[in-house]
């Protein structure tokens, strides 16, 4: 039985919205996803944590040209070496991922749908673990996988795009995807994982707890409860710059 995530033992009084949002992701993680089983999804989450100790990742980070390092990643799961490479690279060296590398991942047998679900799992894990580290909370134990099969659901409206991955156009989120954003009013960073719609749902859920509800992001007067908007964007901007993010 997987227990809800709690911050009750933390030294600070952590608003319940964080535990609620993190619990919803943990519940998703414990179940079969769209392209990966529950067991595989939890192994992806484990590899996010193990990436910190990966010798190949250390070499890649130090290398002038990261893709010239061909050492096998230190692996602690039954995932394929390719899946581990994807998880570790997104976790540890995301600023130097290239379209050539992404295409090589597809050529080596991963589908773009599987890739997008890995991206969604990795980024949610990085965010939740990073929050725990920031507030001095031990990392939450990963959930126990439940039985079930991946749904293999691919939205009909997903198309090739200017991004590396296929995605749903801004004005194309009708039917089962109508909840993803206000039709026609969104940005690429929200659309980015729409090939696997549940990843966008998790993105929205975590963003609303950690930052701002997606509907408020473009409202320059939206602010936090304790930080004003300039302070929020300062933190966001500094974190993005340190991660060498162009977006």
């Amino acid at each position, binding site marked *: 039985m997987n227990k809800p995530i709690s911050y009750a033992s933390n030294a600070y009084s952590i608003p319940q919205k964080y535990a609620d949002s993190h619990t919803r992701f943990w519940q998703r993680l414990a179940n079969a996803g769209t392209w990966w089983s529950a067991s595989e999804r939890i192994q992806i989450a484990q590899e996010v944590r193990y990436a910190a100790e990966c010798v190949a990742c250390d070499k890649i980070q130090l290398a002038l040209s990261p893709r010239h390092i061909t050492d096998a990643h230190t692996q602690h799961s039954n995932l394929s070496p390719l899946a581990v490479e994807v998880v570790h690279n997104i976790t540890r060296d995301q600023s130097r991922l290239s379209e050539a590398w992404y295409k090589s991942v597809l050529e080596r047998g991963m589908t773009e749908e599987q890739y997008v679900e890995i991206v969604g799992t990795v*980024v949610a894990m990085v965010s939740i673990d990073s929050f725990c580290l920031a507030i001095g909370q031990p990392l939450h134990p990963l959930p126990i996988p439940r039985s079930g099969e991946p749904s293999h659901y691919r939205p009909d409206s997903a198309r090739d795009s200017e991004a590396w991955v296929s995605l749903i156009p801004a004005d194309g989120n009708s039917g089962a995807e109508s909840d993803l954003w206000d039709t026609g009013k969104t940005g690429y960073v929200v659309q980015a994982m729409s090939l696997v719609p549940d990843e966008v749902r998790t993105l929205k859920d975590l963003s609303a707890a950690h930052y701002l509800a997606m509907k408020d992001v473009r409202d320059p007067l939206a602010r936090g409860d304790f930080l004003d908007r300039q302070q929020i964007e300062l933190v966001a901007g500094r974190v993005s710059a340190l991660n060498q993010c162009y977006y």
Partner: protein
Amino acid sequence: MSSQAQNKKINLDVITQGNSSSRDSLIPDSDILVDFAEAIVGGSPEEIKTSRDVLSAHMGDQAMIEAAGVASNFQRMVRIADATGIPLGGFEAASREIRSELVLDDFLLQKQN
């Protein structure tokens, strides 16, 4: 853009240069917030604790928690953008001036090379 809407002037150097910037950001408590953000990205529990304690003492526990939430949110957002190769789209024109000031296009150039 939020500063324009509120008619507030700020200096953006602190985004790319951190607290080594010679210009005051004009954002209240920016040095404390930047230290905390840098510690979170750096990942050292000791450095995080030091900057967390300073932030909590100066701005309150709830402001610290909110800053932790925002920082960890953007640890996620940068990875989404970088791992999916999304273009800037309409954001490019809207952010041209800010991008120039922050030299953000250098990151994109590095990524393409």
